């Protein structure tokens, strides 16, 4: 029974992840006064891609084929580590937050390898940017999680989120705000959202993540889109777990509150995307260093 209970959370993530993109797109359409694409468009896109054939360039090697699979695999593995609301994580052990960060790193590493494997100059450019920015956003995520670990005196994600209660807000309100802000910036940067990257553009000179996957087609591209949606869901789960700790005791209330918060988060991301312009490429590192600084502040300013 417990294993079934533990399986609910990752499966929920696998099912609901693309919906987040749908909510974001609906919000953006609402801001622009359009009807926008259907809420489930991301599902249709992924479904359509799975039924297409893939085209491989003669200059690519097996890495190009394996990359999207490894990327999706690493992201799904990461999905087993994060608890959500009252739903426990499938796997929990001491130090699993490090594994989480490095699973994201692994997925990114193979995306970059695929991009370099094609030999396209555009994709090399995108890869270089992606690596630069993720090298700056990774410390923000890691130090932010370390700050939470230090508050709750536990180094397992499950334990961290269970120990983060509404009392945390009363005692360490400023620290929660700092970590929450840092995680929000990381979420925007890692998922190629607007202050950092524009998910709508198909202009190689402005985009970062999108340019690396130009040569993927069919099911491979579907895997990449799905992994990206899942990654957004996971980072959202972390943010919601830290910022809105609901532990009322009733599992239904906790879980549905967390789900509603995920929806609100998607709307927030949509609102940010609609109201802000993309930053100049040179200013993005500044934003990410700022996020790291917020995380460090949260870690340093703790009462001793």
């Amino acid at each position, binding site marked *: 029974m417990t294993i079934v209970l533990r399986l609910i959370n990752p499966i929920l993530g696998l099912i609901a992840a693309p919906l987040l993109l749908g909510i974001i797109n609906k919000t953006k359409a609402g801001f622009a006064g359009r009807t926008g694409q259907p809420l489930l468009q991301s599902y249709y896109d992924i479904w359509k891609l799975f039924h297409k054939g893939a085209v491989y360039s003669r200059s690519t090697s097996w890495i190009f084929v394996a990359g999207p699979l490894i990327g999706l695999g690493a992201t799904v593995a990461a999905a087993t580590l994060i608890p959500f609301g009252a739903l426990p994580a499938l796997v929990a052990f001491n130090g699993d937050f490090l594994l989480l960060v490095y699973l994201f790193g692994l997925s990114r590493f193979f995306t970059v390898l695929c991009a370099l494997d094609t030999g396209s100059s555009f994709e090399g450019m995108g890869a270089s940017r992606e690596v630069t920015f993720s090298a700056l956003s990774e410390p923000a995520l890691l130090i932010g999680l370390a700050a939470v670990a230090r508050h709750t005196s536990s180094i397992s994600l499950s334990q961290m989120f269970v120990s983060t209660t509404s009392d945390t807000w009363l005692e360490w309100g*400023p620290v929660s705000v700092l970590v929450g802000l840092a995680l929000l910036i990381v979420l925007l940067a890692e998922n190629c959202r607007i202050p950092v990257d524009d998910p709508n553009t198909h202009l190689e000179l402005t985009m970062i993540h999108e340019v690396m996957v130009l040569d993927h087609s069919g099911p491979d591209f579907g895997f990449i889109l799905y992994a990206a949606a899942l990654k957004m869901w996971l980072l959202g789960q972390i943010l919601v777990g830290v910022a809105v700790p609901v532990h009322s005791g009733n599992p239904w209330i906790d879980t549905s509150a967390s789900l509603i918060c995920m929806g609100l988060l998607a709307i927030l991301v949509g609102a940010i995307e609609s109201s802000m312009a993309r930053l100049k490429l040179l200013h993005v590192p500044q934003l990410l260093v700022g996020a790291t600084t917020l995380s*460090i*502040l949260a870690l*340093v*300013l703790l*009462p*001793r």
Partner: protein
Amino acid sequence: MNNTADIVMIFLVLTNLILLGSSRLIACIRTVAVQGIVLGLLPLLLNGWSLELHLVIFSAAIITLKGIVFPWMLTGTLRDLKTQREVEPFIGYGISIVLGTVILMICMWLGSRLPLSGPATSPLIVPVVFFTIMSGLFLIVSRKKALTQVLGYLVLENGIYAFGVALVDQQPMLVELGILLDVFVAVFVMGIAIFHINREFDHIDTDKLSGLRS
């Protein structure tokens, strides 16, 4: 952790970091203004909103000067200038923020080595005040424009002021008001000096002034 003094201190750290990382002069002036207003509320916050007359007058004076008069004077100066942003500082903005974090950590360490004799309202006061003073100094040495250096001077003064207010239980109002008057005169004179530098040289880069010596 949840006491208001702590929140004010964290706010102080954040405004300092914003100052270190932003290039637009008008944004810097506004940040310093907000910092001044929050610091003006600090004496009231620390005494638990007890609305004694001398505290209220003191707060009102601080808020009027630091939150309204200084920004107004500096914005007026800025309007006459051609430059609206700090271009090519000696130390770039990203590195400034990183250095700011390093300075903050050094200040935290320093603060832990300097325990206060009296009952401290917040353990963050000593490190954050040091950090504010240091970031004011950092702004003065790392930026070229005279206006940013005036802002650095104001931040430095804010730090010293916060130290006095937070540590001394009942600060002698006369002393603080005297300092405030000095700062007012200083900013006034600096505003005029910037205006003259600008008229004479068509820029306010202070590093070029050293060429006058030879």
